[in-house]
C-alpha cells in the first residue's frame, strides 16, 4: 500500500524570486492526486522538492517519518527508493539502451540474478508498450517513447509513491488517454500513492481522486476532486475552462488594470456555465478494484461538512449514483467491494492495450 505524503508550510525561492510559499497538503495514501497550474508556477519544482532534489527554505515533507527537506542525506537516499519519478522528458541515460536504463535501479539496489532482472524489465516494457524497442538508445526513439520508458524505469522497483511530471506533454490525445488509463490501472494493481503534475484538462478531469492548483506563488486549493471542479475561485474557473478572461495572463498574471477592463467588458457570459463533473476512470476490466476508492470514500464523507456547499452536493451526487460502498463515481459498472484485502499481485500480467510505435 502507498505511503501518505505530508507537506507542511513549504516555501521555495530561487535567489530573490519566490516560487511558492507556505504550501501545506496531504497526499492520502494510495490515492491519485493531480497538481494543476499554469505553466511556470513551479509545479515541477514542487515535485522535485517532494523527493528532496531541491531544498525549500522552510517547511517539511514527511514520508514515513523522514523529512525530505532536512533529514540527513543518508535517510533521504533510503526513502527515495520508495519513489518512482517520471521525468518530463524521461531523463533516460543517453549512453544506455532502454533495457539497461530500465534495469538500472534493479542492478543498483537489488542482488537479483540477470535472468530475474530480464524477466521484470521485459514485463515493465510490455506494460508501457515498448516491446521490441528495448535495444534502442534513448536518442533513437521518439519523445513519447522516451516518456513511457521513463515510466517503466520509475515502476521497476515497485514504488509506493509515484510522481509524474507532465505525463501528457508531447503526447497526442489518444496516447494521453491510454496513459491516463495506464496510471489508473497501475494504481489498482500496486495501490501506490500517486501525484501527477500537469496542465492537461482531460487528465485532470478523469484521473485523480484529489486535485490541487498552484497559482501566484500559492496553493490555491487542494482537496477531493469535486472541490476543485466545482470551485468558484476565478483562477480555477478560468483554468478549467481554458479561456482568456480571468486572472491568468500570458505572462504569469495580469495587472489590475487589464482585469478591471475585462470585468467591465461584456462577453464573459458563458463564464458562469456550470461545469460538469466527468466520472472518474475505472481500472480496465479484469483488474482488481482500486483499494484507494473505499478509503477515499470514508475520508471524504468524514470531511463532508467542512467542504463548500457546491462540492458537498457534487460528492453526494456521485456517491448517491454509485450506491454501493466502495465504488464512487462508478458509471454503473464495477465491483460491489473495493474493500481492503483484495489480493494484489502487482503487475504479473497486464492485459493492456499497448500503444505501440512512435508516439
Amino acid at each position, binding site marked *: 500500500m502507498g505511503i501518505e505524503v505530508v507537506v507542511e508550510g513549504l516555501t521555495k525561492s530561487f535567489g530573490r524570486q519566490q516560487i511558492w510559499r507556505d504550501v501545506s497538503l496531504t497526499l492520502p495514501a494510495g490515492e491519485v492526486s493531480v497538481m494543476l497550474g499554469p505553466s511556470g508556477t513551479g509545479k515541477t519544482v514542487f515535485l*522535485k522538492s517532494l*523527493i528532496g*532534489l531541491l531544498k525549500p527554505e522552510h517547511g517539511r515533507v514527511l514520508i514515513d517519518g523522514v523529512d525530505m527537506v532536512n533529514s540527513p542525506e543518508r535517510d533521504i*537516499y*533510503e526513502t*527515495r*527508493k520508495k*519513489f518512482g*519519478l517520471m*521525468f518530463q*522528458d524521461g*531523463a*533516460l*541515460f*543517453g549512453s544506455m539502451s532502454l533495457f539497461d536504463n530500465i534495469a*538500472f*535501479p534493479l542492478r*543498483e*539496489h537489488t542482488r537479483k540474478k540477470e535472468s530475474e532482472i530480464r524477466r521484470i524489465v521485459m514485463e515493465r516494457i510490455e506494460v508501457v508498450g515498448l516491446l521490441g524497442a528495448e535495444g534502442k538508445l534513448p536518442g533513437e526513439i521518439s519523445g513519447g517513447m522516451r516518456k513511457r520508458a*521513463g515510466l517503466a*524505469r520509475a515502476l521497476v*522497483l515497485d514504488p509506493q509513491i509515484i510522481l509524474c511530471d507532465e505525463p501528457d506533454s508531447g503526447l497526442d490525445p489518444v496516447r494521453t488517454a491510454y496513459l491516463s488509463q495506464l496510471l489508473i490501472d497501475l494504481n489498482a494493481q500496486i495501490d501506490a500513492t500517486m501525484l501527477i503534475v500537469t496542465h492537461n484538462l482531460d487528465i485532470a478531469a478523469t484521473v485523480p481522486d484529489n486535485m490541487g492548483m498552484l497559482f501566484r506563488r500559492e496553493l490555491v486549493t487542494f482537496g477531493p476532486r469535486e472541490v476543485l471542479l466545482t470551485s468558484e475561485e476565478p483562477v480555477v474557473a478560468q483554468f478549467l475552462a481554458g479561456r482568456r478572461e480571468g486572472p491568468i495572463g500570458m505572462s504569469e498574471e495580469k495587472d489590475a488594470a487589464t482585469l478591471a477592463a475585462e470585468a467591465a467588458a461584456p462577453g464573459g457570459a458563458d463564464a458562469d456555465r456550470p461545469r460538469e463533473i466527468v466520472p472518474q476512470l475505472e481500472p480496465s476490466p479484469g483488474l482488481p478494484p482500486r483499494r484507494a476508492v473505499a478509503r477515499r470514500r470514508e475520508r471524504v464523507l468524514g470531511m463532508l461538512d467542512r467542504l463548500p456547499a457546491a462540492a458537498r452536493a457534487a460528492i453526494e451526487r456521485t456517491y448517491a449514483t454509485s450506491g454501493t460502498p466502495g465504488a464512487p463515481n462508478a458509471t454503473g459498472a464495477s465491483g460491489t467491494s473495493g474493500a481492503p484485502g483484495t489480493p494484489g499481485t502487482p503487475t504479473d500480467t497486464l492485459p493492456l492495450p499497448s500503444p505501440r510505435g512512435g508516439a
Partner: protein
Amino acid sequence: MITGALRQTGRLFALAAEVARAIFRRPFQFREFVEQFWFIASVTILPAALVSIPFGAVIALQVGSLTQQLGAQSFTGGASVLAVVQQASPLIVALLIAGAAGSAICADLGSRTIREELDAMEVMGVSPVQRLVVPRVLATMGVAVLLNGLISVVGILGGYAFNVFLQDGTPGAYLSSFSALAQLPDLYVSELKALVFGFIAGVVAAYRGLNPRGGPKGVGDAVNQSVVITFLLLFFVNMVMTGVYLQLVPPKGG
C-alpha cells in the same frame, strides 16, 4: 561578488570532502573506474609523450648552453633531474589532465546534468558522486601518477639524447651528474604532485560539470572554466609543494 566567489569555493571544497568520503563507501564502481581509466589514459598518453620529448630537449638545450658558458657542462644531467622530474613532468601532467581529461569529464557530466540524468539517478537513490564522480577522480589520479612516470622517463631520455648527440656532452658526465644530484625523494614528490593534481583536476571538472549554468551553452562555459580554474589551482599548488619540498628535504648535492 565576493560572497559569490566564496560560496563557489566552499561548495568546491564540500564536493572534494564528499568525494574523499565516498571513495571508501561501498559498493565501489569498479567497472566505471576501469572504463574511465582506460578513456583518460587513451586521450593523454600520446600527447604526453609527444610534449615531453621537446620539453626535455628544450631544457637540455637551454641548461646545456648556460652550463657551457659557465664551464660546468658536466652538470647538465643533474639539471634534467631538477627541471624535468620535479617541475616539467608534473606540469605537463597538469596540462594534459586538466586539458584532456578534465574537459572531457566536465563536458560529460555537464551534458548529463542538463539532461536531468543526474537528477534521475538521485531520485533512484543512487548518489551521482559515488556512482560517477568517485571513479572519475580516482581514474584521473591513477592516470596522473602513471603519466608522470612516463613523462619523466621520456623527458630525461629526450634531454639525454639532445645533450649527447647535439651538444657534444658525454654520456658519462650526464649520468654521473644525474646520480650525483638526483635522489629518490625527487621522484616521490613528483609523483605526489601528480596524485594531488589528478585529484584537484578531477574534482574541479566534476564540480563544474555538476553545476552548469543554464542549458547547453552553460556546459560549454563550464568546460572552459573548469580548464582555466584547474590550471590556476595546479600551478599554485605546484608552487606551494615545491616550496615546502625544498625546505623540508635537504638537497643531495649540498
